[in-house]
């Protein structure tokens, strides 16, 4: 469990990126921080691995104040995936994935073996192992980024708009992949995005942020959709324009689901999706609350 207790971050130039934030991030679930640009998402995320230190307040991981931990060591135990992957351009894919293992002193052979396994885990062909990042597509680079984040099998995985720079089809592929991984691995994922649909798709818990890292609403997708806390949340999730008010209309192949703008959003099918991706308004499979 990660806990923020009245955490404030003021940068030297006076910008208050986060103002007395209190937030509990449960273990083995995906918490999504969603909000518009400049709302402090990245800053919040980086306070978890001490890339940013709070001006005041306490950040705890499993009850321990992280201010007392050595930043370099702390970071080696926490996965971090960012937009544009942040891969090291001068290292081959396999070495990029194994970087943190090398840093923690794992023998080269073993580290590389583990890196190859991780390529399978994230659905990357092992043939890419000896390529340099610039020889991969954006989507493939993001997969490498995720594999690298998972290398030391961390309990916590921080993801900062990891799928923000890829096209919608690849993005949706990567999202499904992450849902599958999360079902298998059950990490404590903190995921930053400004895409509310992505938030609803991936999040067990969603924090909608206003400027200054202020939480407008914290809840499950269902809670937020069915009961938006205020106008800000309504407009952010699109319930104010009725964009999420769905109704049925008879179509050629069954009932069409029409959204608030009059566009077909899908067709209504009868079987309930027990396996596979969750969707907005539905909480996913069994989630055990570990640690």
């Amino acid at each position, binding site marked *: 469990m990660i806990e923020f207790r009245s955490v404030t971050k003021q940068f030297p130039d006076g910008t208050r990126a986060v103002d007395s934030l209190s937030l509990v991030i449960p273990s083995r679930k995906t918490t999504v921080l969603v909000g518009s640009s400049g709302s402090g998402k990245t800053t919040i995320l980086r306070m978890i691995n001490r890339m940013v230190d709070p001006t005041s307040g306490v950040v705890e991981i499993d009850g321990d104040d992280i201010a007392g931990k050595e930043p370099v060591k702390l970071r080696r135990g926490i996965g971090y995936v*960012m937009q544009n992957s942040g*891969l*090291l*351009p*001068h290292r081959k894919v396999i070495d990029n994935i194994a970087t943190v293992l090398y840093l923690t002193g794992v023998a080269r052979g073993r580290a590389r073996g583990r890196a190859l396994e991780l390529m399978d885990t994230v659905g990357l062909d092992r043939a890419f192992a000896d390529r340099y990042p*610039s020889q991969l597509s954006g989507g493939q680079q993001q997969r490498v980024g995720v594999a690298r984040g998972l290398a030391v099998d961390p309990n916590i995985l921080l993801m900062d708009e990891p799928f923000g720079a890829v096209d919608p089809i690849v993005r949706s592929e990567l999202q499904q992949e992450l849902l599958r991984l999360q079902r298998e691995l059950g990490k404590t994922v903190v995921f930053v995005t400004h895409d509310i649909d992505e938030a609803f798709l991936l999040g067990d818990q969603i924090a909608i942020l206003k400027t200054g890292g202020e939480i407008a609403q914290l809840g499950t997708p269902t809670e937020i959709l069915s009961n938006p806390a205020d106008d800000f949340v309504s407009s952010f999730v699109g319930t104010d324009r009725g964009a999420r008010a769905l109704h049925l209309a008879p179509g050629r192949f069954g009932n069409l689901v029409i959204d608030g703008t009059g566009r077909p959003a899908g067709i209504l099918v009868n079987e309930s999706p027990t396996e596979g991706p969750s969707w907005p308004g539905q909480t996913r499979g069994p989630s055990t609350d570990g640690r």
Partner: protein
Amino acid sequence: MSWLLANLDMVLSLTLDHIWLSVVPIVLGFLLAVPIGAIANRYHLVRGTLVTASGILYAVPSLALFVLLPSIIGTQILDPLNVIIALTLYAVALMVRTTADALADVEPDVIQSAKAMGYSTWGRLVRVELPLSGPVLLAGMRVVAVSTVSLVSVGALIGVNSLGYLFIDGFQRNFPLEILVGIIGTVVIALVFDGLLVLMGRFLLPWSRITRTNGRLIVVQDDPVVINP
């Protein structure tokens, strides 16, 4: 031709002197400039001072520096050390700035991600930032190598032997062949050094030659521009 054959021993020995007088400043210049450049990049106050100082230093004519050094550091006027030190200073002057600029140009994203993975500041500099500055450092070193080789000749004016001696001697005796041999020898040394640096780059920076077939094109070393102070 017969002159060359008759004086082959002398030409060879001058060539070796020339190589030796160039290699030391080139290598020393690199070894000194990289840490200084890294400090300059890290501390902004230091950076301004260092960059300005090296700019001024680079503007001092080489002959003046050769002549002045003995009175500043107390060496003998004919000591090859004067040339070595002066040329090392030029190499440092050029490379400090290049290093600082190259380090400042490393993608912030890559630095953030290296930090997030748990590199220490030192580890990040040595394992990430400097390697990524490699192509720019290499381009800088190619300039340094060529300009050092050509500046060594100037040392002949103060009696430090190198292929430059052939220019002076050939000029005084009005003997163009000797001058020509000196020029060709200097150019060959410069080309060989340049070639060696390029080879080292291929070997040490394999990633920098990768270009994407589709879309964004990355890298490839710049050709150096030779400047003579």
